[in-house]
C-alpha cells in the first residue's frame, strides 16, 4: 500500500474529510511541521517513572529528481541545543536581519524565526507557544555540533548535511495555522515573548542562536548573496520553483558530505550514536543516554510504519511510533498537544504526494500510518462500563458486616473488575483475591487463619533448613542457584528492593525457596520472582506474602510446570478466542507457518502483562484479572484486546512472525492500559452475548466463583471437532442441539 493510501485511510479513520483545497506542495527543504518539547524516554528506565528527554522535532520536505519527494523527520534533544558551545561563543548580536524580512502574507510566512526549545520548562508549553519554525541555517549549527562532537562518526549524517546544503536559503514554512499562531512572530517579538510567557533568559538564548546563524552567513562565499533572494520566495510556490541548489560550499566548519540527499540510504540516522545495524564497524558507542536520546533524523519515506497512539480524548497528545524496515523503533512522546497538527500535516502531505506519485502505487514500500483512538465507541464497551467506582478505603469497609464478613462479594469483585482498587488498601484486599482469606470469613476467622498459616510456613521453612547435605546440594543445583540469580535482578529499581544487601531481597528469595520445597513438582520457574515481588511489596510480611503467592500460583501457567499443560491450555483458549473474536488476526496467524505458536504473547501470559505495562497499570490489570468477575480467564481477553487494538497493522502489513514478535516487544510499556482493559471488558461482553460457543472454549465459562452467564440463561455449546481419540461431552449432541449448563431452560433469544 502506498503511503498515500495509508494516509488516506488514516484520515478516514479520523473521520476527517480530505482536504482537497489545493495547497501547493511544499518546497524542497521546507519545514512543514515543527514542535518543541517532544520527549524521548530512554527504554532502560521503562519500569521507573519515565525519564523525559524533551527535544525539538521538525518535519521537512525533501525533493529528489529520481526518487521523488519525501519527508525528513528530525528530533534534536534540548540538551544538545544548550550544550553547543558555539552558540554562546559566536554571538555578536547581528542576527536581526533574520527577523526583519517581511511579515505574513496570506497566512503564509516567509520569515524565519530561529528559536531554541525551552529547556528549562519542558512540560509546560501552551498550545500556541509551542510552534516554532527553525531556519535551515540553524541546521548549520546542528551540523557543527554533530561534526565537532561526533568523533568521526559522521558518515551517518549525510542527510543533515545534504539538506543543509540544499535548503540553506529556502526559508519557507508551510504551516498556515501554526504559522498564524506562531504568528506575527518575527516583527513582533514582544508579542511572541508574551505569548511564550517565558523568561528573558530564554529569549536571550534565542537571540544568541539567531546571531550565531547569521554569523555563519557572513562568513560564507559570495554565492550566498546571489542566492539570498530565494529566501524570500513565497512559501507556497509551485514545485517547479524549487530553490536553486546551493553548492556544497564550505559554509560550515563541517567537512561537506559528497552524498546527496536522495542517495542517502541510511534509514535511521541516529547521529550521536552509531547504529549497530550498519555494517561491521564497531565504533565506540557511548553507553550513556546519548545513545537513545541523541539527535535522531530519519527519512519517513524509508520507514515501514508510522503509528500514532493518542493518550487523551482530545486526540492531541500521545505517541508517534516510527518503525524502520529493519524493525527498529523510535517513540516520540507528545505530552502537550501537537499530535493533531501532525496528523493534519501528514494528511495534507498525502494529497500533495498523490499528485506527484502517480503510477507508483504498487511499490513495495510498506509505509503505514494508523490512528489509534483513546476511546472506544460506546457499543464496543461493556454495558456496565463506567457505572462502578473504584474500591476505596471507605467503600471497602462498607462491604463488610460487623463480623467482617463480605457477603456480597460479587458486587465487590464487580467494582474491582470495572474500576480497580485504591493502591493504599491493596494489602487488605489482595489476600481475599488471592484465596488467602475466604470472603465469608469473619475478622476472627482470619486471625486464626493467619496464625495457622504462619505456623505452617515456619514448618515449611524448617523442612528446607533441615535438608541433608545431599538434598541441599541437589536443591541448590536445581533451584536455589537460579532463584539467587533471579531475585537480585527482580524489581530492583523499586524502593522496596533497591540498594545493596537489601534484606527484602532475601525475604523474596526465602519465599521462593520455601515454595519450591513445599511444591517439589513445580519447584521454581523463572518468572515467579516477578509475580511474587509486587505481592511482597504490598503485604510486607513474609508469611502473608507466601500464602498469597501460593494462591496466585494456582491461577497461573506455572502451576503444572514442568509439564506445561497449563501453558498449552491457555494458548489453546487464546487461539480459539481469536478465531471467534478477532478472525482477521487469526487468519493472519494461520497464514504464517509458526504464527499459532503465539511466541509474542508468552511473556504476557507468564507474567500477566507485568513487563508490558508500567507498574501502576500492570498491578491494576492483575487486580482486574484476580477479581474473577464472569470468568477466570480474563487475561486471555486482555491478550485479544491488545491484539485487536495494536495488531491491526500487523495484518495490514502482512508481517511475518518474527516481525510480529518485534512489533509487540516494541510496544511493551507503550500501550494504553485503560483502553486495553475497556476493550477487553467489551470483548468479554461480546463473548457472553454469543448464542453458541465452541466446546473448545467451554472452559472459559466455568468460573470458580461466579457463573459467566446469568443463571436464567445457558449457552449452547457446539462441538467443533476433536482428534479421534478424544472425547467431547458435546459430540453426542448434534451441533445445534442445546447443551444446558446448570439450569434447565435454554437460552432465550
Amino acid at each position, binding site marked *: 500500500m502506498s503511503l498515500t493510501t495509508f494516509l488516506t485511510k488514516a484520515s478516514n479513520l479520523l473521520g476527517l474529510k480530505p482536504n482537497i483545497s489545493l495547497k501547493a506542495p511544499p518546497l524542497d527543504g521546507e519545514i512543514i511541521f515543527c514542535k518543541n518539547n517532544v520527549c524521548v524516554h530512554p527504554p532502560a528506565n521503562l519500569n521507573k517513572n519515565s525519564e523525559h528527554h524533551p527535544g525539538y522535532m521538525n518535519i521537512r520536505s525533501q525533493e529528489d529528481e529520481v526518487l*521523488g519527494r519525501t519527508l525528513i523527520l528530525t528530533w534534536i534533544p534540548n540538551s544538545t541545543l544548550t550544550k553547543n558551545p558555539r552558540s554562546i561563543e559566536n554571538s555578536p548580536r547581528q542576527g536581526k536581519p533574520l527577523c526583519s524580512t517581511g511579515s505574513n502574507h496570506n497566512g503564509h510566512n516567509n520569515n524565519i524565526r530561529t528559536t531554541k526549545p525551552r529547556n528549562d520548562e519542558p512540560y509546560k508549553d501552551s498550545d500556541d507557544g509551542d510552534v516554532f519554525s527553525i531556519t535551515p541555517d540553524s541546521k548549520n549549527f546542528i551540523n557543527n555540533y554533530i561534526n565537532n562532537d561526533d568523533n568521526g562518526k559522521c558518515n551517518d549524517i549525510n542527510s543533515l548535511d545534504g539538506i543543509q546544503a540544499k535548503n540553506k536559503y529556502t526559508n519557507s514554512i508551510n504551516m498556515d495555522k501554526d504559522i498564524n499562531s506562531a504568528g506575527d512572530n518575527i516583527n513582533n517579538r514582544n508579542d511572541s515573548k508574551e505569548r511564550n510567557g517565558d523568561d528573558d533568559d530564554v529569549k536571550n538564548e534565542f537571540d544568541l542562536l539567531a546571531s550565531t546563524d547569521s554569523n555563519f552567513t557572513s562568513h560564507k562565499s559570495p554565492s550566498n548573496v546571489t542566492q539570498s533572494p530565494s529566501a524570500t520566495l513565497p512559501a507556497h510556490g509551485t514545485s517547479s520553483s524549487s530553490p536553486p541548489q546551493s553548492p556544497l560550499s564550505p559554509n560550515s566548519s563541517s567537512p561537506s558530505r559528497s552524498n546527496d540527499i536522495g542517495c542517502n540510504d541510511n534509514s535511521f540516522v541516529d547521529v550521536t550514536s552509531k547504529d549497530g545495524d550498519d555494517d561491521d564497524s564497531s565504533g565506540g558507542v557511548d553507553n550513556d543516554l546519548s545513545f537513545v536520546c541523541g539527535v535522531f533524523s530519519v527519512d519517513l519515506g524509508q520507514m515501514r510504519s508510522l503509528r500514532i497512539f493518542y493518550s487523551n480524548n482530545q486526540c492531541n497528545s500521545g505517541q508517534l511510533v516510527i518503525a524502520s524496515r*529493519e524493525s527498529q523503533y523510535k517513540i516520540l512522546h507528545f505530552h502537550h498537544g501537537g499530535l493533531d497538527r501532525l496528523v493534519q500535516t501528514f494528511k495534507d502531505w498525502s494529497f500533495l504526494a498523490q499528485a506527484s506519485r502517480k503510477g507508483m502505487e504498487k511499490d513495495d514500500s510498506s509505509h503505514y500510518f494508523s490512528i489509534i483512538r483513546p476511546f472506544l465507541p460506546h457499543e464496543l464497551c461493556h454495558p456496565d462500563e463506567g457505572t462502578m467506582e473504584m474500591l476505596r478505603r471507605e467503600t471497602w469497609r462498607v462491604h463488610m458486616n460487623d463480623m467482617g464478613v463480605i457477603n456480597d462479594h460479587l458486587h465487590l469483585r464487580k467494582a474491582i473488575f470495572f474500576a480497580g482498587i485504591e493502591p493504599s488498601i491493596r494489602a487488605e484486599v489482595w489476600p481475599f483475591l488471592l484465596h488467602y482469606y475466604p470472603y465469608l470469613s469473619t475478622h476472627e476467622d482470619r486471625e486464626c487463619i493467619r496464625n495457622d498459616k504462619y505456623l505452617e510456613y515456619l514448618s515449611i521453612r524448617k523442612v528446607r533448613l533441615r535438608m541433608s547435605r545431599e538434598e541441599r546440594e541437589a536443591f541448590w543445583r536445581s533451584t536455589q542457584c537460579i532463584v539467587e540469580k533471579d531475585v537480585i535482578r*527482580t524489581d530492583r529499581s523499586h524502593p522496596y528492593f533497591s540498594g545493596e544487601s537489601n534484606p527484602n531481597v532475601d525475604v523474596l528469595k526465602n519465599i521462593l525457596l520455601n515454595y519450591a520445597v513445599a511444591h517439589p513438582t513445580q519447584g521454581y520457574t523463572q518468572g515467579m520472582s516477578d509475580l511474587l515481588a509486587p505481592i511482597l511489596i504490598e503485604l510486607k510480611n513474609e508469611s502473608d506474602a507466601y500464602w498469597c503467592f501460593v494462591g496466585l500460583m494456582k491461577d497461573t501457567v506455572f502451576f503444572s510446570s514442568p509439564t506445561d499443560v497449563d501453558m*498449552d491450555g491457555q494458548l489453546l483458549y487464546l487461539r480459539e478466542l481469536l478465531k471467534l473474536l478477532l478472525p482477521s488476526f487469526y487468519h493472519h496467524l494461520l497464514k504464517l507457518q509458526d504464527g499459532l505458536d503465539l511466541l509474542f504473547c*508468552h511473556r504476557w501470559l507468564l507474567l500477566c502483562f507485568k513487563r508490558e505495562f508500567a507498574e501502576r497499570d500492570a498491578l491494576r490489570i492483575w487486580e482486574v484479572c484476580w477479581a474473577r468477575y464472569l470468568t477466570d480467564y480474563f487475561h486471555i481477553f486482555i491478550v485479544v484486546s491488545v491484539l485487536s487494538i495494536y495488531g491491526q497493522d500487523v495484518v495490514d502489513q502482512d508481517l511475518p512472525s518474527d516481525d510480529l514478535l518485534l512489533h509487540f516487544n516494541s510496544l511493551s510499556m507503550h500501550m494504553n492500559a485503560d483502553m486495553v482493559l475497556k476493550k477487553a471488558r467489551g470483548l468479554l461482553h461480546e463473548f457472553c452475548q454469543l448464542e453458541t460457543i465452541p466446546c473448545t472454549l467451554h472452559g472459559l465459562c466455568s468460573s470458580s466463583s461466579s457463573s459467566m452467564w446469568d443463571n436464567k440463561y445457558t449457552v449452547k455449546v457446539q462441538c467443533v471437532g476433536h482428534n479421534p481419540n478424544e472425547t467431547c461431552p458435546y459430540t453426542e449432541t448434534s451441533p445445534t442441539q442445546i447443551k444446558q449448563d446448570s439450569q434447565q431452560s435454554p437460552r432465550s433469544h
Partner: protein
Amino acid sequence: MSFQGPEEYDYLFKIVLIGDSGVGKSNLLSRFTRNEFNLESKSTIGVEFATRSIVVEGKKLKAQIWDTAGQERFRAITSAYYRGAVGAMLVYDIAKHATFENIDRWLKELRDHADDNIVVLLVGNKTDLRHLRAVMSEDAAEYADRNNLIFIETSALDSTNVEHAFQQCLNEVYKRVADRHFSNVNIGQTTALPTTNLQSTILEKKFCCNS
C-alpha cells in the same frame, strides 16, 4: 515510494543464544546489536531477538539473534526457538563451574531440536571476572575440540571478543552455506526450513526495487 530499502541484505541468518540462566546471554545480545550492557538486566521471559548486519566477503549478512530464558522453557517456545537456526552460541559463565557442567545438557537439546549442521560456538562469558575464574580456558578449549565446537571467551561487560565471537559464528555459517552444508536448503529456492520469515534464512535474498 520506491527507495532501496535499508533491509537489503544477501543472507539472513538466525543465531540462537543458549546456556544456563544468568550467564549473560541477554547482555551478549545487547552488546553485539546495540553496544549496550546492563548490569541489572532482568531475567529474560519469553523470547526476544535483535538484528544486526555485518559484511563477510563482500556479502551483507543480517544476523537475527534470538534470546530466551536460560531455565527450562515451555515446549511451545523450545521448538519455535530452534526452528531455522543456523548458528548457536552456547554460553557459560567462566566464574560458575556449574554453568560449564551443564553444557552437555545444552548440546543434547541442540541435537534434539536444531539442524544437524548448525554452527555451535562455545562461549565462556564474563572474562572480566578474572579473579573469580572457575573454568580454565584449557579445559573449555579441550571440551570444544572434543565436541567439534568453536571456542571463544568473551566479556559482554567490557566488550572483549563479543564482536569477534559473533563474527566468527557468522563467518562459519557463511562458509557452510557457501559449501552448501545445510542439506535441507537449496540456494535460490524456498528452503525446507520450517519458518516463515526465515524461509530465506540461508537463501540469497533477492531484493527487488521497483523504482
